[in-house]
């Protein structure tokens, strides 16, 4: 490029946000047609880290695929493996002991809090405030240590088994989880004081980045994105699974449709997760963590099975079409971030780039989960 550039009035330019860009938190590329600071048109380009998890699900046996599921979403991995084990258990008709289900619910909720904590930090960092991330990581570290002690890993857990768990929790875990709840409640108050009440923060989110309920329905957005648009939908309540009907918890819903509403939903969800953990620890029954009778080789009868779970990012669905062999005939993952991301192109049209990237942050993207 040499010589002077002649810019015509009304001319737009293309800005490549990504694949390597600090705001996209991973290898996501958004081709933006810009008019100065305003976005005329945005086009999301996916697929930079596609790893064919669905195909792997078809040419491996069910237990062999289990670790793959935790590679989808490195922040809330337990929710995804939970979906898989529930789907296969439903398909193969495996009974799960009650204690195992309770422990699953407790660990999934802990993982959800960890995931939301990290989102909180990263989101505020998107807005230019670096310090809350460090505080959030400190709390998250506590959860990761706790989960590491029982599951053996910190991020990509492979803790659940068909029919139960790999490992029972011990008293130490219970004590630490109990100690965590008041600690986390105190932290949430601190975050409110530090971030939620901040006038700059509120001005950047309040009324900005609208995602309407229609748009959510059009693109299939779920989770906090939909609940921030006034849609009262949570798989744990609407299509109950596991032991969630036993728990008393609320689904936070905000009608404002803006970035602040999505922020508030997630912050409230952390509190609700703490309530679930508290109740789970109180009700935790004794007993085995694996069923007595379990098939050696998992061969679900031929049929079409679907199981949805509420992960930290939204409704995650697994569809297994079995032909009666040890491999799935069709293994389809419906990942929430993929749908949530799809509405970005429409939502950010006409916005300024700063607000659009705040909107993107409020979607809570985890790129490996979009690209599967």
């Amino acid at each position: 490029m040499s010589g002077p550039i002649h810019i015509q009035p009304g001319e737009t330019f293309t800005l490549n946000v990504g694949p390597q860009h600090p705001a996209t938190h991973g290898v996501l590329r958004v081709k933006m047609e810009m008019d100065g600071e305003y976005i005329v048109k945005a086009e999301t380009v996916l697929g930079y880290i596609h790893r064919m998890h669905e195909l792997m699900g078809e040419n491996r046996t069910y237990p062999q695929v289990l670790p793959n599921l935790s590679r989808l979403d490195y922040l809330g991995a337990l929710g995804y493996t939970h979906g898989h084990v529930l789907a296969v258990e439903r398909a193969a008709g495996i009974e799960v002991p009650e204690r195992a289900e309770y422990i699953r619910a407790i660990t999934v909720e802990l993982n959800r809090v960890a995931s939301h904590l990290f989102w909180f930090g990263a989101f505020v960092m998107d807005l230019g405030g670096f310090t809350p991330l460090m505080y959030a990581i400190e709390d998250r570290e506590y959860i990761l240590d706790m989960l590491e002690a029982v599951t053996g890993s910190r991020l990509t857990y492979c803790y659940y088994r068909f029919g139960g768990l790999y490992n029972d929790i011990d008293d130490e875990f219970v004590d630490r989880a109990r100690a965590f709840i008041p600690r986390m409640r105190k932290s949430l108050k601190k975050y409110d004081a530090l971030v939620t009440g901040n006038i700059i923060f509120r001005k950047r989110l309040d009324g900005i980045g609208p995602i309407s309920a229609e748009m959510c329905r059009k693109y299939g957005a779920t989770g906090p994105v939909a609940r921030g648009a006034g849609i009262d939908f949570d798989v744990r309540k609407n299509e109950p699974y596991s032991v969630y009907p036993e728990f008393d918890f609320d689904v936070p819903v905000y009608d404002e449709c803006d970035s602040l509403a999505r922020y508030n939903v997630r912050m409230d969800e952390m509190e609700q997760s703490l309530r679930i953990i508290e109740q789970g620890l109180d009700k935790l029954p004794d007993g085995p963590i694996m069923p007595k009778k379990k098939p050696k080789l998992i061969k679900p009868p031929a049929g079409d099975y679907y199981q949805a779970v509420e992960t930290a990012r939204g409704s995650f669905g697994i569809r297994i079409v079995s032909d009666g062999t040890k491999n799935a005939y069709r293994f389809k993952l419906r990942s929430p971030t993929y749908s949530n991301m799809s509405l970005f192109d429409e939502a950010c049209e006409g916005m300024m780039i700063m607000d659009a990237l705040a909107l993107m942050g409020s979607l809570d993207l985890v790129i490996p989960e979009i690209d599967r």
Partner: protein
Amino acid sequence: MSLTILNVVIAVVIAIAFAALNAAYLVWAERRGAGRIQRRPGPNVNGPLGLLQPPADGLKLMTKQLVIPGGADKALFVVAPVLAMVPAIMSFVTIPFSENVVARSMNIGVLMIFAFASLGGMAILFAGWGSRNKYGVMAAVRAVSQNISYEIPMLITVITIVMMTGTMNLKELVAGQSGGIWNWNLLPSLSSPLMPVAFLIFFVCTLAETNRAPFDLGEAESELVAGFHTEYGSMGFGLFFMGEYANIVIGASLITILFLGGWGCPLGLFPSVWWFLLKIYLLIFSFIWIRWTFPRTTIYGLLNLSWKILIPISLFNLLLTAGLLKVF
């Protein structure tokens, strides 16, 4: 005659050394401060308390290759970092650190500092435009509109003070405030009851003028990668960095001189250069504190703040002071 020139040269060299030392060690202070705020240690490996970190960073930057991106405007690209650093150093020449520690006491000291400060905006424009990077251009446009809109309330505030004191000489400005905290311009006086507000305006404008968070839109890393210095590596980046910190020192010095009584002790005893340094470092600490606490504003929020709030208030203050000066 030649002796005066020699004096000036020595003073300028000391000013440069002071600016460079400050720039290097403020980076260290910023990183350590951020570490304290975020409950982590910060740089603590090289030397005691990590004090050798700045020289190590400087050496690293100096030994790296200066890459000029293809298609860049070479002249602008090379000139920009120098233009960011030099005016900042030149401004030190006229800043009085105490009664005697001043390189060149000028009758238009205030004007000179603002003239040099305006060049800083040009450096950012050159850097952004010269590197032919879309993020760079966007950041440069932002930074320039920001610099222009915050210079206005800043200058109006300065005019208010100049009207009250009747001098533009920085030394005389301080001398007018000597004798203790009750004489400082910070406090409301009979002729200018809105002085604390003016101080706040000036403080906010200083943050914006030095491109500090929460107004660091020129290098908003989460949307514009690294803003105007995206394409700069090695010492080009280093000069921008040093220029930024030198500007912070100047901003803090100006606040100290205009509002906080310069080298005077709050109780009116033993005026000395140490009071001046204490005051500017306290101010700089507050800049660091603010940076690591607040998220970033938006560009329109920033411009609205200046044009709809700061400029009207500072204009009102100016008129009020002018009127009251006639009365009293």
